[in-house]
C-alpha cells in the first residue's frame, strides 16, 4: 500500500485533522477489510486482510495522536525523519521543563488525587497550546522547519510528563 496515511482515510494532508471524519472512515475501512470478514475465506485472503487491517490501524494510531501525526507529516513532507536526539537551542522551553519537573517531584511528597488531576489539566492545556502553534507552523513548513522541530520536542516532553502523572494516579488506586 503506497498510499499516504491521509489519502487512505480520504483526508487532506495537514496537521489539522477532521477527527470525526477520520474515525468515521476508519470504521468504514475496518468494516471492509477486518479479518473477521474473512473468517471463513481462504488462508490467502485471511493473510491479506490481516496485513491491510494492521496497516489501517497503524495509520489511524498515527493520525489520531498529535505528536505522531506531526512526526509523520514532517517525514513525508520533508523526506526526513524527526531525530529524537537533535538538540535545538531552546532556553525558554528548558526553563519551562525544569519548572514542570519540579512541580511533578513536589507532588511526589504528597500526591493526592485532586492535585494530580489539577496538574494533569494544566499539562493538557499546555499540550493544546503547542498543538495550535504546530498547526500554524505546518501551514508554512518550508520557512518554519526549526519551529516545527522545536514544537515536536515540546509535545514529546509534555506527553511524557502526562504519562508520568497517570502512573502516579494509578499508584493511588492500588
Amino acid at each position, binding site marked *: 500500500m503506497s498510499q499516504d496515511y491521509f489519502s487512505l482515510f480520504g483526508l487532506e494532508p495537514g496537521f489539522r485533522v477532521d477527527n470525526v471524519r477520520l474515525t468515521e*472512515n476508519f470504521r468504514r*475501512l*475496518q*468494516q*471492509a477489510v477486518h479479518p473477521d470478514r474473512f*473468517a471463513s*475465506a481462504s*488462508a490467502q485472503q485471511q493473510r491479506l486482510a490481516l496485513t491491510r487491517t494492521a496497516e489501517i490501524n497503524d495509520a489511524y*494510531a498515527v493520525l489520531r495522536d498529535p505528536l505522531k501525526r506531526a512526526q509523520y507529516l514532517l517525514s513525508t513532507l520533508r523526506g526526513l525523519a524527526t531525530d529524537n536526539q537533535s538538540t535545538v537551542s531552546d532556553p525558554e522551553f528548558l526553563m519551562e521543563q525544569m519548572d514542570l519537573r519540579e512541580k511533578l517531584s513536589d507532588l511526589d511528597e504528597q500526591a493526592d488525587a485532586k492535585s494530580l488531576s489539577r496538574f494533569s489539566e494544566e499539562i493538557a492545556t499546555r499540550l493544546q497550546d503547542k498543538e495550535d502553534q504546530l498547526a500554524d507552523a505546518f501551514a508554512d513548513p518550508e520557512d518554519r522547519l526549526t519551529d516545527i522541530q522545536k514544537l515536536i520536542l515540546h509535545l514529546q516532553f509534555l506527553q511524557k510528563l502526562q504519562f508520568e502523572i497517570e502512573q502516579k494516579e494509578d499508584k493511588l488506586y492500588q
Partner: protein
Amino acid sequence: MALLQIAEPGQSTAPHQHRLAAGIDLGTTNSLIATVRSGLPDTLPNDGGEHLLPSVVHVTADGEFSVGRSALQYAGTDPDNTIISVKRLMGRGLEDMSAISNFSANQLVDSDSGMPSIRTAAGDLSPVQVSAEILRKLADRAEQALGGDLTGVVITVPAYFDEAQRQATKDAATLAGLKVLRLINEPTAAAVAYGLDSGEQGLHAIFDLGGGTFDISILRLTKGVFEVVATGGDSALGGDDMDRLLADWICAQAGLERSDKRLMAEVLTIARGVKEQLTEHNEAEVALGDRWQGSISRSEFEQLVSPLVERCLLACRRTLRDAGLKPSEIEQIVMVGGSTRVPRIREAVAEFFGRPPLTSIDPDRVVAIGTAVQANILAGNKPDADMLLLDVIPLSLGVETMGGLVEKIIDRNTTIPISRAQEFTTYKDGQTAMAIHVVQGERELVDDCRSLARFELRGIPPMVAGAARIRVTYQVDSDGLLGVTAEEVSSGVKSTIQVKPSYGLSDEQISGMLKSSIEHAREDVSARMLREQQVDAARAHEAVTAALAENGEQLLSREEIRRIEAALDSLDQAATSSDPELIKQAITAVDNLTQDFAARRMDASIAKALVGQELDEI
C-alpha cells in the same frame, strides 16, 4: 445508515449450506457451549439437562480423563489428580503466586513451556492439555446435539487476558482439534447477547461478578463496531467471599470452633445455600444439624457483605476514571456471573450508575449466548451482518534496549491487528549478532515488565558500530497474538526469525500432543490430515469462484481468468485423490495464481468503503 451497502468482501454470494459453529465460554469455575439454531442462540445441555459444565478435570493413572461433574466427585477422595480452576494457570508462570494459590505446592512443577505443569498419577500435564479436555468435552456435546463436526468455534477470554494467556487458550483449542474462528472478550460477548450492537451508538458497562473474580469493562459501540474502552476489576473478589463472610457469621452465632476443617467445609456449603435463598426470600433458616438452629434476614446479610459491595464500586469508579467517564454517561449495564443474582448487588449497581442494570438473560449463560451469535456470523451463516468487534491490546509491548530499559513498540489500548516496526543498530564494531528481548508492560525497566520471548538475530554482516540497521517488527493479529520478526536491512542481507512467546507451547509440542491424543483416540492420523486438506480445498475453491463471479471481469483479463479456471479444475481433480500433499500443492498453485487478484479486490473494497461515504454526504 450508508446509502451504499458497505462492502462484504470475501463472503460467498452463492447460497451455501449452514455451517455448524459454536461459542464457548471457557470459565474458571464453569464452562458452557452455545450455538445458533433456527436463528436463536442458546446454550446446549448435557444428557442430564445441565448447561453448566464444571471446569474440573480428573485423570486416572491409566490416563483416562473425566470432565465436569463426574470429575468433581473426585475432589474430596483424589484431590491430587483432580484439577480445578485450571484457567488461572493458563499462560502464567510459577512466580505468579496469585495464579497458583489454590493449587497445593507439590501439585505444580516447573516445565519448559514457562507455565507450571500439574503433577498427576498419569504424569505431568500442561494447563493447555487440561483445558483442551474441557473444550473437547463441550465440543462433543455440541457435535452430538447438532449431528455433525463443528466448522469452527469462538472462545471467550477475559478482556485483561494478555498475549501469553490468549496464546495458551488458542493452543488448547488446537489441541482439542478445534478450529478457532476468533477469541473474543467476555464483556463484548455479553453485550452482543443483549443485542446492544443493534443500537446506533453508546457506552456500555459490563459488570461481571463470578465466584472468585470481579471484572468491569466499558465498551463503546459505534455503528456496529464494538471497542473495549477500559477494563478493571479485582481478581480476588467474588461470590465465594460472600459465602465465607456468611460462614463466619454462622460460626460466631453458633459458637463453633474453626479448627475443624470438615465442619468448616460443611458450614460453607450451608452458607452458600442460605445466600441463594436470600435472593428470593427476605429471611432464611440456618440449620446446622442438631448443633444450632437460627435464621438470618436479608438486611442482616446485606450488612455483612457491604464491604464487598464497596470494593466492587471502587473498581467501577477507577475504571470509569481510566476511561475519562462519569457513571451517568453509561447507557446500559449488563450483569454477568452468578453472583449478580444477589439483590443487594443489583441495587448497588443501579444506584451507582443511576439506572437499573439488564438482567433478563441468565447471568451464567449470557457470555456463551453472545459468543454463539459471533460464531454464527464468523462461520459465514449471516453474510449481511455488519457487526464488528474491535479489540485493543491490554498491555504495551516493547523491546529491551541498553541498560535494561524498555522501548515501547506498541502502546496499550492500540486497536488490533497491528504491525509496527522500529529500527535499532549495533553498538560494537563487527558485531554479527543481536539479542532481542520481547517484553510486555507499562513500566520503564525491563525487570518490572513481563518477559515474553528472547531470541537472537545472527548473520549480521560485520560493519562499524551504528551502521547496521536492524528492523524489529511486531505484529499482533486480531486474536491478540504476537509475532516478532527481525531483519538487517542496510546491506540487503535479510535474516528473519519468528518467535512465539516463551510462555506458550511450541508448534512442535502442540503437534506432538495432538498426535498422541489422536493415537489415544485410535483415530487415523493420515485420514484426519486428508480430511483437513479436502476442507481447505473446498474453501479455496468456493472463495475464488465467488470472487471471480463478483468482480473477475472488472479486474482481470480474459487470459488471467482462463488460467485461474484451469487451476481450479486441477484443484478439483486433486481433491478427489487420497494424497493430502497433492491437494496442498494444488491449493498453493491456486493461491499463487490469485494473489494479485486478491490484492486488487482488497484495494477495490477499500476504495468502495469510502465511496459509500461520498454518496452519503450528498
